[in-house]
């Protein structure tokens, strides 16, 4: 079925620490995942994506890991900064259904100075 969910609703980290945000999905046929960041009062902002033929993808200070065996993906943020405070959503895109995104529940990341 179409179900993408997050393990933890809130995460609090110290500035400079690394953050790990987790996401589980249920559709084993899923082949494309995206992480979005949503700051208060704004729309979701693309962070990084990964296809199912990859296990890992790195961006600037962010890394996404995909474990297809247990249908789990994670977003790692290195050296977390106050500007990283936001809600983070994983999403799954369905190419054969008009490109729609199915979002997970969201994790609120709070960075303490």
């Amino acid at each position, binding site marked *: 079925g179409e179900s993408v969910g997050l393990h933890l609703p809130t995460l609090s980290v110290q500035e400079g620490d690394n953050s790990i945000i987790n996401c589980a999905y249920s559709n084993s046929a899923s082949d494309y995942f995206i992480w979005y960041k949503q700051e208060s009062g704004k*729309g979701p902002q693309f962070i990084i994506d990964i296809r199912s033929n990859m296990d890992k993808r790195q961006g600037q200070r962010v890394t996404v890991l995909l474990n297809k065996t247990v249908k789990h993906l994670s977003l790692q943020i290195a050296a977390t900064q106050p500007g990283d405070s936001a809600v983070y959503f994983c999403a799954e895109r369905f190419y054969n*259904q008009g*490109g729609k995104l199915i979002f997970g529940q969201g994790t609120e990341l709070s960075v303490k100075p």
Partner: protein
Amino acid sequence: EPEVTQTPSHQVTQMGQEVILRCVPISNHLYFYWYRQILGQKVEFLVSFYNNEISEKSEIFDDQFSVERPDGSNFTLKIRSTKLEDSAMYFCASSERQIYEQYFGPGTRLTVT
């Protein structure tokens, strides 16, 4: 950097009234989407639109909802007879191609009283 814009930023309406939410997608984008987010919840897909046709719609997108691209720049979402449960943040998104990143607008907060 080009961005998706939405108007109004906040719309208050009475139950049973019609509302039109407006979006201006990024100019060279061909795929358009509406999502909504009830306060504190995840972002939910409503509809995708391409080549002046709906490509995909969710169960939320019933007969009370319609979308239109009335000219070369605007993309609108109409709710014919609003209900209290339609109160949410509505996000427009666009992408150059279906497989490309979706860019989200800042959203319109709809409050139905």
